[in-house]
């Protein structure tokens, strides 16, 4: 079914097709349209979902935690400071092993107050125990949300999943999209039948009680094992999804990487813009390629190292600062992943696109120019820099 939808409309439609038991709903730009469109489906009787409007994101995630613990499939959508306000609950959802699905429409964090896109919100939550899957466009946002449900609910995984798309750039842009039939989606996600839940009278249990030192660590190790297990499950679910959609997904996408000597590693809509730059450079004989990281948690470190093993110079592009004074979060992960390679490529980090600063194809070409220079001179220069900002007056 071909159509033209914005990213927000696409995700709202995916949620309608999934028909979850509960949605915790609280608006925040740019994710507001997701609960807004879904509210219409609820009002029109097109879904059976219990739509719970609350007074904050802390509460919308609390609703999801409680509902999921009670055995109900729960979903949520938020952005930026909304995700930040959920922070406490994100850890609770993950550690209670509650496979909630959350659409995170990426937006900069305050301050200064800014409504536009970067990845600082979800990157801030990267260590919360949630699986994180990022989309390049509306199609991927739709597909990822549908795939997130069976990934999270798998007994060996049982972790919440955050599907991320770029605020405004993806959420508010109308583009062509292929939608699945609702029956196919319902069949794909299946019924949610957790083995144990609060209201199961045969096996009453408590969720989220105090965990004393002799047991807390065991539970954390189990959670870490679940995150490791998620990697294989994500690929299995992607393979099943390809059968019903014809669209193929991996942990990351390799674009023109076969013989690439210069490569980018980046996330989200910018990867699409960078693909156009790669095409142009290829026409001029430059062996350029890129890797679009789709799954950031669990991080595909070994796979990424293999994919970059034959490159000469790599620029990791971070769309969030991180303030580590040592590069952004994607850089930290990528550089760590490459450590075990025998011959490592030169590696630099470029922080870009903060608070909606546009990334143009020319900017990407400039980055490749820098990589080419590095391979010729053998000098990386400053390893961690920013791209596209005005120069400060001195």
């Amino acid at each position: 079914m071909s159509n033209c939808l914005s990213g927000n409309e696409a995700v709202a439609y995916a949620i309608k097709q999934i028909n979850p038991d509960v949605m915790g709903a609280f608006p925040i730009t740019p994710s507001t349209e997701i609960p807004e469109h879904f509210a219409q489906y609820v009002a029109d009787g097109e879904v059976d979902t219990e739509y719970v409007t609350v007074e904050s994101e802390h509460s919308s995630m609390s609703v999801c935690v409680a509902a999921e613990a009670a055995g109900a499939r729960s979903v949520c959508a938020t952005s930026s400071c909304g995700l930040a306000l959920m922070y406490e609950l994100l850890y609770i959802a993950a550690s209670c092993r509650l496979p909630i699905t959350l659409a995170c429409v990426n937006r900069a964090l305050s301050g200064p107050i800014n409504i536009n896109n970067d990845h600082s919100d979800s990157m801030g939550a990267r260590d919360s125990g949630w699986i994180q899957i990022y989309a390049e466009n509306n199609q991927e946002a739709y597909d990822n949300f549908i795939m997130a449900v069976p990934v999270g609910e798998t007994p060996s995984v049982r972790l919440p999943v955050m599907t991320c798309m770029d605020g405004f750039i993806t959420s508010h842009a109308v583009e062509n999209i292929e939608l699945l039939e609702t029956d196919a989606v319902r069949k794909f996600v299946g019924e949610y039948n957790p083995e144990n839940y609060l209201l199961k009278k045969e096996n009453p249990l408590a969720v989220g009680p105090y965990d004393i030192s002799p047991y807390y660590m065991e539970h954390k190790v189990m959670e870490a094992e679940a995150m490791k297990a998620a990697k294989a499950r994500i690929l299995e679910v992607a393979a099943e999804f390809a059968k019903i959609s014809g669209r193929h997904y991996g942990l990351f996408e390799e674009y023109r990487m076969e013989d690439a000597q210069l490569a980018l590693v980046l996330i989200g809509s910018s990867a699409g813009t960078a693909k156009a730059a790669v095409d142009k450079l290829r026409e001029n004989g430059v062996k350029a390629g890129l890797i679009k990281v789709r799954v950031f948690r669990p991080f595909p470190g070994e796979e990424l190292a293999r994919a970059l093993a034959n490159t000469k110079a790599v620029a990791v592009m971070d769309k969030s600062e991180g303030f580590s004074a040592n590069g952004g979060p994607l850089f930290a992960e990528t550089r760590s992943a490459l450590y075990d390679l025998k011959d490592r490529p030169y590696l630099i980090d470029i922080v870009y696109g903060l608070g909606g600063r546009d990334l143009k194809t020319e900017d990407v070409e400039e980055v490749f120019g820098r990589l080419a220079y590095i391979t010729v001179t053998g000098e990386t220069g400053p390893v961690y820099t920013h791209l596209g900002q005005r120069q400060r007056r001195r």
Partner: protein
Amino acid sequence: MVTNDMVEIRWHGRGGQGAKMACLLLAEVAGLEGKFVQGFPEYGPERMGAPITAYNRISEKRCTIHSNIYYPNYVVVLDETLLDSVDVTEGLKEGGAIIINTPSSPAEIRSKLRGWTGKVCTIDARRISEEILGKNFPNTPLLAAVIKVSGALEIERFFTDIEESFKHKFATKPQVIEGNMATLKKSMEEVQVG
């Protein structure tokens, strides 16, 4: 991928004039015609009357670029007063055109275009809209004008498809569809090219 068969359009308007809606409607209709499309507004502090920008890409192949449009083929200006404060022809490609909502003729308005020597099109969107719809909705006339001037879509097909979109969009107030269709047709006839 930027190819020669891609049409890029930049809309300039003021918050509340419907530039975003026209842009999204154009994307929807072009999509119905089997084109690959993008329609996206540039967001900032949202307030009535503030200058806003919106963009369209229409192509035969899916365009993966997700940056703003810096070198448009066509520029649409919903509010003549923006010519004083915004460099609307910035980056406008040679061989392209600018379409302005104004009662003035192309020759009269050209002096305000900071040296743009290419095609200038004008349409009195306010008058047309007020005559037919009874209110100033400049976006519908400008949408018709850009379809006519750009040739991006086949005109007969455009009318059929947009009527479908209106039926969907105005499901709760179908009485406005006829007026909007009449506005589109009248605007196509009235657009002046200079």
